[in-house]
């Protein structure tokens, strides 16, 4: 094993170039360790994001050797081709600078999919009783651990091809809310996610599910949305 990594890092905005750095290689090193080393010891002008460093916040997501990943949880040994690494910002999002992607549209689409809980209960109502093993609750639970890191969105081919497509994360959130029996905005949400920009644009490539660091399945959630929309449409509700 070589004692040095050859790391190519994207520098610049939409226009830019890969810049090469040599980084000392250590056992159990993560890609985040590598980026941090570059910025602290070699080139302080490098822009990148991280926060928790322990695989909880999703801030450190970027493209490593062509694949979107959380860099704090990606061991160099697992992904380096020989002793080379290529780091780029997340795909499908505009680049602010270097490894930092602009996530505004990602979150705008969350809004457009009505990814916000709308409660029905009033203060005077009793607590909602939701059986944890009910099918709806299980469906919701399967998807609620999403932290909005953007990896699925970066991995999705349809997002690359269709700028209007809401994307796996926003649709996954919509599904968890539709499955939440306390939520009252189901019909509006179904209308928001139906159609060419919504769940029907998903072609089941399952890249999102393969890449999700939390092991969620947006594919399954989107399949649920497709069925729910069809059911509502047939019932004349949409």
């Amino acid at each position, binding site marked *: 094993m070589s004692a040095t990594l050859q790391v190519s890092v994207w520098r610049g905005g939409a226009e830019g170039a890969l810049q090469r750095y040599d980084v000392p290689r250590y056992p159990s090193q993560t890609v985040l360790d590598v980026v941090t080393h570059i910025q602290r010891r070699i080139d302080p002008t490098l822009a990148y994001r991280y926060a928790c460093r322990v695989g909880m916040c999703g801030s450190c997501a970027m493209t490593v050797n062509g694949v979107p990943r959380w860099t704090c949880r990606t061991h160099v040994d697992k992904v380096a081709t020989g002793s080379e690494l290529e780091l780029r910002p997340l795909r499908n999002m505009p680049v602010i600078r270097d490894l930092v992607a602009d996530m505004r549209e990602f979150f705008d689409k969350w809004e457009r999919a009505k990814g916000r809980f709308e409660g029905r209960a009033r203060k005077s109502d009793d607590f909602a009783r939701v059986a944890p093993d009910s099918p709806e609750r299980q469906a919701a639970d399967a998807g609620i651990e999403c932290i909005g890191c953007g990896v699925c969105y970066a991995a999705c*081919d349809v997002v690359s091809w269709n700028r209007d497509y809401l994307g796996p994360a926003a649709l996954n959130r919509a599904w968890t809310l539709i499955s939440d029996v306390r939520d009252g905005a189901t019909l509006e949400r179904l209308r928001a996610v139906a159609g060419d920009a919504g769940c029907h644009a998903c072609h089941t490539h399952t890249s999102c599910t393969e890449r999700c660091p939390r092991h969620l399945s947006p594919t399954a959630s989107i*399949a649920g949305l497709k*069925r729910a929309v069809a059911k509502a449409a047939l019932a004349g509700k949409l």
Partner: protein
Amino acid sequence: MKRVALIHRLSGIALAVFLPLHFWALGRGLELDSFLRWTEQPLVKFAEWGIVVLLAAHLGGGLRVLAIEFLDWHEWQKSLAALAGALTVAAGLAFALAL
């Protein structure tokens, strides 16, 4: 792009191009014999085999999509791509043997 999805899409496009031609040829009725003589050529035979393979590939990929969209999510659904491939090979072989 995922391989099974790319094959599904490309085979679909190829079939969409082939199908009108297939219908048109068959619709010619009485002139079918002269057309059939033309189809005896080896290149055409190869193309026919190709069409059958594309059809099987598209069917395999489609069954995978239907399984994922309509059946509850399971681990085995990841192997559907492999199954789609197997179906394609089987159909291709069967047709090749019949030709």
